[in-house]
């Protein structure tokens, strides 16, 4: 979709500052010099077209009590669809990308406990028959930039 200048201003503003007040859209309208109806119509359009993936709270998975990791495995070209279907079937798998490396399938996994993490990886190994899975939980986070959405709400 084409974004006009007010769409862009709105997106810039709400990426970091959606007001936590009873009438947040009216507040945004005042800031941007338009009406609440206009803001609501624009947001609806931006959400429906997929420009906005989620509006509202982006949670910190660790603070919520979840455990996460980044995993990678080597999948033969002819098995990519089938293996991706197994991996993607877990709701805690939020991102899965093919990358140009012998370890070609990279996914993030978020689950309620460390035990669940191990159990899920074991099940993936069993169902795909691929034993060699790199399991790379973050030991330290130096930066998560808030105005890019690439996995920031995953914190795996």
């Amino acid at each position, binding site marked *: 979709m084409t*974004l006009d200048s007010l769409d862009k201003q709105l*997106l810039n503003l*709400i*990426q*970091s*500052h*959606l007001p*936590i*007040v*009873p*009438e*947040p859209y009216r507040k945004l309208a005042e800031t941007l010099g338009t009406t*609440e109806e206009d803001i609501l119509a624009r947001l609806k359009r931006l*959400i429906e077209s*997929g*420009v906005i*993936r989620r*509006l*509202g*709270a*982006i*949670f*910190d*998975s660790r*603070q*919520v009590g979840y455990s996460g990791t*980044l995993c*990678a495995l080597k999948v033969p070209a002819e098995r990519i669809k089938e293996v*991706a279907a197994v*991996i*993607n079937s877990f*709701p805690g*798998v*939020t*991102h899965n*990308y*093919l990358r140009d*490396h012998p370890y070609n*399938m990279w*996914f993030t996994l978020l689950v*309620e406990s460390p035990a669940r993490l191990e159990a899920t990886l074991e099940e993936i190994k069993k169902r795909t028959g691929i034993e*060699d899975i*790199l399991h*790379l*939980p*973050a*030991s*330290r*986070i*130096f*930066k*998560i930039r*808030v*105005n*890019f*959405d*690439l*996995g*920031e*709400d995953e914190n795996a």
Partner: protein
Amino acid sequence: MLSQLDKEIIRALQEGLPLVSRPFLALAEKLGITEDELLAKVQDFAERGVIRRFGAAVRHQDLGFVSNAMVVWQVPEERIEEVGRLMATFDEVSHCYQRPARPPDWPYNLFTVVHGQTPEDCREIAARLSRASGIASYRLLFSVAELKKSSMKYFVEK
């Protein structure tokens, strides 16, 4: 620790803020609490870091940041902190994490995500990071296909 009510609030909030004049009131009514109670809870979550950000998650591809790469670095253990902090200061770096190396197959222990207009941009950014840090052993991993991308839903599995 999160209470049962906290979890219910998280479940409700992660469905997205309703597009109505008083969205917190609409959610609060479903939760059986008052608008003020919900607003106070959201403020509290934001202050405690349970909510990292209250705003919009935007698909950056649609905003002109068309290329990104995962750049992985082999950093001597004793330099991890210094190099991690340095790379984090670059605007083009959105994420910078330390992760365990798994030698010999996987020697890399520092992960960054870099953003540019083109893949060539990303290579140049990585080269700049390498010069700035003195870390010569690194690799760019471009994504060639997105197999899944979804927002996490907490407390929905039983």
